[in-house]
């Protein structure tokens, strides 16, 4: 029921029913205004539930918003803003909220007590997966996902400040004003749609005017300060190391306005002031979950801030003076107060309503909503008709963030709750209600004083100026649970009640942590925000201990649920990983080449031609280009590192197993690089361009790794070496020109023709390509007479197109990764399929490349007995029986006759291909003592693909073993 007629309304739907809301208010306010009490079904027992609170701590009123790609489950109706056309649905009920068949769970509830699943569904084990779990999953739960891909956008962002003020109630506003006036760089974050906290919800004065008016003035002053940033709708969700805070920002307007839905902030603050306020706690009394039973502070918020009366006749039940405010505010707003029930014998309150002191609520009635309560007083029981019961069990300071770095809060007897332990988060201080200071005046004072201390730390001077405000004392007499027939709910979101906690104690789960896991208390989306303290108190009582002896409560981030979508913001689609494109990319795509990922790079798999229906046809043809004519391949993705300095050669000697100081200028040498543990890191060629100038080539896969390794060696291991390393991978577009006609082709593009005499195998030097300064290397990864020609990247696409056009004239063309792989396997050249991190120089037959004349990275470890010798699995070639006998990479190798079991495995296959050159399938692999077994026939077995083949073990170089073709 609305207390006044609103000026402007929007229409949304709840389970299809059209409902009017006032812009700015939460869906919960509009539902209450429409008289809707039943909003949800509970997690486990499907009990009818209503709206409890007016904030992010809401336990019951979880709803689903939108449908299809925009469907979002488990949204709290209390923080969901109404908007035109919004579609809201109840969840966890079927066929409807009012007639939920799973409510049968509630009738069999004695069997579903805490620990029920652990005890019941134990045997037989196979039943768990197939029977029990699916049934339980269907029965219990919250909202569902649509199964469709989320189309909304989310953001991540970074912010920095001197002082982060968390919460904009009286303490937070004063803290921000004080720090801001002192000139500090301030961020003030508050999760509400408007700043002011309780000052927007309570009827009281600040500085002699209505609190809400004072808030308007304070905000106007803050907004005018260029050094203050106000972030509404932003919940600080976590406190992390070195002053980093996570915060979830909800963006006003969101989807409908084409805006991102949410933004996840990382706020880095030199100091933080936590002014998160306090959360009212419920009292556990029989059937305290009936729709219409609410928190007193929630009732006041709806009445005072949103002008909505949650009921026609409201009763108030509390154990502290604060509860009486509720009765006064309701009366002032013209809402009938049915009764005030105070558990304290000496409670005093005046007003035009019946007061019952020393009394408790022992029962509630009403099918889908509250109709009456039964109270017990010194004079017996009494039934009171009411459709809303406002409950206050006292206040729990919102200590959550102070627990995020292992801090444990301290029990405060005076307020019967936990307060933050100082210095729980380095750089963060606490002020106001979250610190246990509950009156408005105390909050304003603490906010100002604490902020003044913080800015003084930062070298600024602050003036403390606090407005006058209400300073009523907070008087409370703890009341946790009321005895009586029926379940007394503690954790509404996970359906945990007093008896569950007592059962845990009875079964000897006496520590808080054990009790939580046994009962699941505190494990719902709200993480026990409102239930932890009551549960702890009930456990303390059940185990006959005091609360501090029983334990404490702690909270982990995030303070409110954070969607995976916003955590992954920016990583959707193309944002997932960078894409690296070579200069020839569009030329390859133009030719219809499927592009495959090679690390972050995209490289052509093969270049299909008309009439080819299978990649193997293209691949075989491309291999033929290189073996018989000339092929062109973009090899720019290989790492290129420029190494210069007086000690450049010494650096190479140290990082490669073989020597480079002896390399002549104008020559290239193959190098093998080990990790310090003796295993192979990478290999490649290094060219000496000048006396103190080299350019190193790495594999595509290890380019980043090798660059980091060289910097590591220079900075951490050998800072004595005077050399500089710079990546030039991106500077040069480099193309392999490979095949018998490669020189002939190059001479069509080079400004000065080259000869075999001037450019022997492993020569390098400067060339001119169409007037552009380039580099030429006579190296070969195919075993053919071949070159790699490099030009500055701006010319890459142009040169590639011209090389390919010339190659085609000569009966060749471009070749892709598939052909490149065949060509290198035919020659037994290794890649990271072979040097996969567990192979040594010995394993690949290169132990003689570890120079005895000098130290190098990995040398000492490579000489370890276990890394050498017959027991090692050594690189071998594997030849299949013929074209119909394809091999399989990843398969294991067995002796003939041995069973194909793990213990008999003698090795494995790393690379396979069909070789059009040799006319059969080839493989590379590692075989125990393999070099001594050439000529033997063994068995290849792939259990995954169900392939068994006999293969002949041979030298890994299948083709042109003396290397005459490359040198010639």
């Amino acid at each position, binding site marked *: 029921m609305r207390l006044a007629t609103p000026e402007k309304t929007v229409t949304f739907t709840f389970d299809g029913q059209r409902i009017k809301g006032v812009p700015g208010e939460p869906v919960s306010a509009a539902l209450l205004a429409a008289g809707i009490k039943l909003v949800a079904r509970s997690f486990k027992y499907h009990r009818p539930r209503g709206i409890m609170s007016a904030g992010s701590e809401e336990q019951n009123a979880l709803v689903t918003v939108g449908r299809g790609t925009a469907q979002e489950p488990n949204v709290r109706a209390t923080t969901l803003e109404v908007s035109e056309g919004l579609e809201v649905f109840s969840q966890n009920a079927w066929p409807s909220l009012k007639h939920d068949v799973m409510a049968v769970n509630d009738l069999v509830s004695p069997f579903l007590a805490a620990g029920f699943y652990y005890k019941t569904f134990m045997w037989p084990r196979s039943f768990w997966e197939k029977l029990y779990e699916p049934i339980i999953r269907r029965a219990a739960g919250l909202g569902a996902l649509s199964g469709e891909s989320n189309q909304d*956008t989310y*953001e*991540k962002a*970074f912010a920095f400040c001197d002082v982060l003020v968390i919460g904009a109630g009286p303490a937070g506003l004063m803290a921000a004003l004080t720090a801001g006036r002192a000139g500090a760089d301030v961020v003030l974050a508050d999760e509400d749609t408007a700043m002011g906290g309780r000052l927007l919800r309570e009827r009281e004065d600040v500085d002699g005017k209505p609190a809400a008016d004072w808030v308007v003035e304070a905000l106007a002053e803050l907004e005018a300060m260029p050094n203050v940033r106000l972030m509404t709708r932003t919940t600080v969700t976590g406190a992390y190391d070195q002053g980093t805070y996570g915060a979830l920002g909800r963006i006003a307007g969101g989807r409908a306005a084409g805006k991102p839905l949410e933004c996840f902030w990382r706020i880095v603050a030199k100091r933080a002031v936590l002014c998160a306020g306090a959360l009212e706690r419920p009292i556990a009394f029989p059937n305290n979950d009936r729709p219409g039973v609410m928190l007193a502070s929630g009732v006041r918020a709806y009445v005072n801030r949103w002008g909505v009366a949650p009921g026609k006749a409201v009763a108030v039940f509390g154990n502290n003076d604060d509860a009486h405010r509720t009765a006064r505010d309701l009366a002032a707003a013209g809402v009938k107060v049915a009764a005030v029930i105070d558990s304290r014998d000496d409670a005093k309150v005046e007003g035009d309503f019946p007061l019952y002191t020393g009394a408790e609520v022992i029962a509630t009635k009403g099918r889908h909503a509250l109709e009456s309560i039964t109270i017990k007083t010194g004079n017996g029981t009494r039934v009171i008709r009411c459709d809303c019961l406002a409950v206050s069990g006292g206040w729990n300071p919102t200590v959550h963030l102070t627990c995020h770095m292992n801090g444990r809060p301290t029990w405060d007897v005076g307020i019967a709750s936990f307060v933050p332990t100082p210095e729980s988060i380095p750089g963060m201080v606490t002020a106001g209600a979250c610190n246990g200071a509950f009156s408005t005046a105390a909050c304003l004072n603490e906010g100002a004083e604490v902020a003044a201390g913080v800015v003084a730390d930062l070298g600024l001077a602050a003036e403390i100026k606090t407005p006058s405000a209400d300073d009523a004392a907070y008087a409370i007499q703890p009341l946790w649970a009321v005895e009586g027939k029926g379940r007394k709910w503690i954790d509404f979101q996970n359906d945990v009640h007093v008896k569950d906690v007592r059962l845990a104690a009875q079964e000897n789960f006496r520590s808080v942590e054990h009790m939580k896991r046994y009962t699941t208390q505190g494990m719902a989306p709200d993480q026990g925000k409102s239930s932890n303290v009551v549960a702890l108190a009930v456990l303390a009582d059940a185990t006959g201990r005091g609360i501090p002896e029983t334990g404490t409560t702690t909270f982990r981030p995030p303070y409110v649920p954070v969607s995976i979508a916003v955590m992954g913001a920016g990583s959707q689609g*193309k944002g997932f990983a960078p894409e690296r494109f*070579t200069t020839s990319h569009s030329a390859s795509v133009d030719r219809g080449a499927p592009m495959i990922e090679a690390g972050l790079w995209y490289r052509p798999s093969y270049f299909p031609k008309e009439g080819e229906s299978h990649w193997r046809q293209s691949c075989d043809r491309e291999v033929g280009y290189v073996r018989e004519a000339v092929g062109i391949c973009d090899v720019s993705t290989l790492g290129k590192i420029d190494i210069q300095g007086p000690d450049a050669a010494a650096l190479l000697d140290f990082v490669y197993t073989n020597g480079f100081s002896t390399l002549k200028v104008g020559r290239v040498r193959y190098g093998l690089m080990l990790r310090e543990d003796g295993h192979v890191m990478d290999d490649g060629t290094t060219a000496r361009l000048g006396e103190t100038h080299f350019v190193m080539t790495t594999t595509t896969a290890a380019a980043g790794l090798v660059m980091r390794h060289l910097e590591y060696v220079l900075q951490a291991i050998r800072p004595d070496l005077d050399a500089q390393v710079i990546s030039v991978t991106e500077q040069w577009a480099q193309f392999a020109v490979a095949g018998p006609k490669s020189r002939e082709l190059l001479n069509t593009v080079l*400004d000065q023709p080259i000869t075999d005499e001037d450019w022997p195998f492993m020569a390098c030097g400067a060339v001119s390509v169409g007037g*552009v300064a380039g580099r030429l290397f006579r190296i070969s990864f195919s075993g053919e007479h071949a070159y790699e020609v490099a030009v500055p990247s701006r010319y890459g*696409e142009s040169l590639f197109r011209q090389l390919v056009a010339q190659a085609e004239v000569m009966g060749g063309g471009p070749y892709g990764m598939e052909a490149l792989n065949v060509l290198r396997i035919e020659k037994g050249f290794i890649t990271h399929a072979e040097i996969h991190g567990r192979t040594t120089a010995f394993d690949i037959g290169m132990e003689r490349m570890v120079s005895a004349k000098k130290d190098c990275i990995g040398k000492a470890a490579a000489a370890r007995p276990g890394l050498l010798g017959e027991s090692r699995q050594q690189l071998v070639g594997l030849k299949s029986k013929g074209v119909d006998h394809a091999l399989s990479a990843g398969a294991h190798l067995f002796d003939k006759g041995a069973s194909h079991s793990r213990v008999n495995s003698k090795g494995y296959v790393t690379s396979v291909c069909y070789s059009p050159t040799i006319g059969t399938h080839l493989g590379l692999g590692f075989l125990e003592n393999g070099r001594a077994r050439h000529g033997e026939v063994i068995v290849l077995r792939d259990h995954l693909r169900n392939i068994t083949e006999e293969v002949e073990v041979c030298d890994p170089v299948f083709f042109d073993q003396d290397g005459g073709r490359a040198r010639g």
Partner: protein
Amino acid sequence: MASLIALTPCAGLLPLTIGAITVTEVVPQALTSVAPFKGHKKAVSEALKAKVGAGLPALNRRSGAVTWFGHGVWMVAGAVSVEGAAVTDQSDAWAVVEIKGAGVEDVLARLVPVDLRASVFKKGHVAKTMLAHLSVTVVRTGADSFEITTMRSMSKTLLHDLEVAMRGVAARG
């Protein structure tokens, strides 16, 4: 003989304007990295001053044509050769863009984990940092403009990430 056509790293991709922000490609005539050898920093700085009018600036700073580019290395806008340093032609290695317009800090705050607000990060300040997944060099070039440099091969990803952030900021109006 070949006849080679040059393409810039962002050829065909820029300019891009969304809301109040525009991204354009910056095409330096040449870029040369200069990494002094041990004991040569001062001499290299003086030599550069004579050649390009600016010596080696302090860490995290740009001075004229010379920009600090990481641990022990500076980037010179222009072709230059000096003794006592590893001098490497980088003219084709980098994609350089300028992003300019009101609210440009809000766009970058969605991508870069460094405080780039004008009160902290002033004109000529340099940050070697990350933009989403990319390694970048960010330089403030004016009150509402920054220069961003990343590896040439990743220019599309840079522009994609900038575009997403620009749309998010522009949608807020």
